[in-house]
């Protein structure tokens, strides 16, 4: 087994442990666990970064060097990395174990799915000509940072429906975090769609061809544009915003997974 697979295996385990620490926190309410959680998040992010870097280095050793952002497996691993990154970047606002705990669970799911699903090819594959573009790298980077920010928004949307004193953050705090994460995610998604369009222009001579993945990313974008207008212009609050953030994230999930498996198009990594 290649070295990077080992590191990423440890990282997966760490996400599991982190999630369990959250569970223990909820049961025992020891404030010192919160400090441990944050140290754990930093360490995991570091190791995760190392894992990605090793995979990158390994691809050069195999003489097919490229940034590890080019197939489904790499995108899953990268998605989990982005979730951790966003949590660390929003640390000041995310002082609520309920949010970091669910984020760890989602990262764990992504890592676990990447390493055990038979539908995922874990080998480093050479880049076919269409994928050899720097625009592609910026495209994937920006899209996944956006998707990770929407994970936070989704978690807030779900938490809105639960009341659990001391575990679920107060309503106002959830709303603020939800809004801020969309404020990070929306420009990133916009940048992701634009860089994707520029890439398509140079690769195929058409910046927009209504391919299913493109169309679904537009739908996602529209949902979050509606989210922003509903909040900023119409002053919506509470349940309606929570529902919008859940619809938005469902759309993200469909753009990312659904389109690959259910609809076919230019973006299916399989071809």
């Amino acid at each position, binding site marked *: 087994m290649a070295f990077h697979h080992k590191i990423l295996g440890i990282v997966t385990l760490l996400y599991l442990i982190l999630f369990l620490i959250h569970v223990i926190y909820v049961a025992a309410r020891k404030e010192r666990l919160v400090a441990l959680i944050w140290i754990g998040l930093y360490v995991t992010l570091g190791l995760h970064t190392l894992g990605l870097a090793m995979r990158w280095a390994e691809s050069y050793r195999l*003489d*097919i060097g490229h940034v590890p952002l080019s197939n489904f497996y790499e995108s899953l691993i990268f998605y989990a990395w982005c979730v951790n990154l966003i949590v660390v970047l929003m640390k000041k606002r995310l002082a609520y174990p309920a949010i970091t705990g669910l984020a760890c669970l989602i990262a764990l799911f992504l890592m676990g799915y990447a390493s055990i699903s038979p539908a995922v090819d874990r080998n480093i*594959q*050479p880049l*076919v*000509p*269409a994928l*050899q*573009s720097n625009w592609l790298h910026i495209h994937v980077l920006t899209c996944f940072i956006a998707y990770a920010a929407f994970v936070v928004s989704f978690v807030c949307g779900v938490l809105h429906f639960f009341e659990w004193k001391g575990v679920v953050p107060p309503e106002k705090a959830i709303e603020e975090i939800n809004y801020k994460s969309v*404020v990070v995610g*929306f*420009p990133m998604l*916009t*940048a992701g769609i*634009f860089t994707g*369009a*520029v*890439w398509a*222009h*140079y*690769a*195929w*001579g*058409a*910046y*927009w061809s*209504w391919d*299913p993945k493109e*169309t*679904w990313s*537009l*739908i996602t974008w*529209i*949902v979050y*544009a*509606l989210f922003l*207008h*509903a909040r*900023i*212009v*119409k*002053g919506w609050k509470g349940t309606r915003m929570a529902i919008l953030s859940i619809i938005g994230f469902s759309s993200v999930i469909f753009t990312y997974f659904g*389109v690959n498996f259910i*609809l076919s198009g230019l973006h299916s990594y399989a071809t």
Partner: protein
Amino acid sequence: MSATKSKRPEVNPAKRGILASIQAFLTSVTFTIMLLSCIAIGSVLGTIVKQGADVEEYLSLYPEGTYRIIRLLGLDDVYHSPWFLALLILFAINLVACTLKRFFSVLKGRGRTELPDERALSAMTMSFRVEGSMSHETITGILPRGYTHVYRGEDGVVCEKGNLSRYGALMIHASIMLILAGGFIGLITGYKGSMVLGQGETKNLITISGGNPKERPLGFALKCKDFRISFYPGGAPKDYVSTIEVIDRGATVLEKQIRVNDPLCYKGINVYQASYQKVPSFSFNIDGENVTLREKDTYNKDGFMMMVVRFETSVHDFGPGVMVAYLDQGEPKTTWFLRNVERLRQKTIRGITLRLDDIKEDLYTGLEISRDPGVWIVWAGFALMLLGLFVNFFMYHRRIYARKTSKGFIVAGVATRNKEAFGEEFERLKEKAYGIPS
């Protein structure tokens, strides 16, 4: 700013004329939300129903009644259907009207830079007084970086930062208009086609794809000087490279190696490496004469006629082979020639000795050719939107006032949003101001 805008009292619709309320609706965000939802739902339909296939395919997928409905609603080509276009046009109208309405209110708010009086300043949520004799340069000297003067007089100063953020929403909305306009220009004046070139071949016609392919002159000619494919050790394609020469009015004006992701551009027309084709050619020796034939080519000499009908890269594991048809006393007959099997390489038909010398595969480069004069407008729209989003969400407008009083100074500050962060900034300013020796 956004909060104050939306709190403006709405005029009771019953008191306005019908036209005025229609106008109000067309410029409302409620209408925007409806339109965007409809566009989203239409787009979803376009990804569920198969787009742009032919009748047989639809009938194999859906019952006939369903197919009729699909055709009636234009669901087989959602993104070019009249109703989808109508939604986009309504959206554009809504956006323009809304933005114009908003633009004027932003401009109106721009002019007010006067320094409020002492009472108004002390009533602001963030204010403090400093005593002593000093000039207002002392105050502006300790402001955080990035503040600029909007007013400077004997009585005091007004400084602000992040003024651009007031135009953020305007920039975002204007950028959408740019993108729509660019897309529309591309739709009207652009085209997209393809060209297949063999090595050494020159062409000046492109095939416009679509229901019934048409040919169209390019205005200049393209010559493929060379085409190469390279592979990774595992066999996956690594690189497609065509060396293309642009020939305009008989002269070579440009030569470039194009690859996927690296097109050639001449006179606003882009030439992309899109695909390749392998076309086999067969070298026969017919009665001592060397003849090269391709699939479907016929050979006809001295009453002997034959045609290459089929090529297989592997015939029953015996390697590449080609099937030849000929007429034997008016009867059509076929026979296989296999290159790697000596016994089946040479045959004698009606007294004529035929020998398959070699099978070569010629590479043809598949070029995609498109012209889209709107693309730069779209790019400008992208840039403006990203700038607008940054300015809108990551900058905020705040002002600091400093006014001379009888005993010293009063300093006050307001921010449109991000009041928390501004509060911290203002606190630091206060500490610094108290530290100044008077």
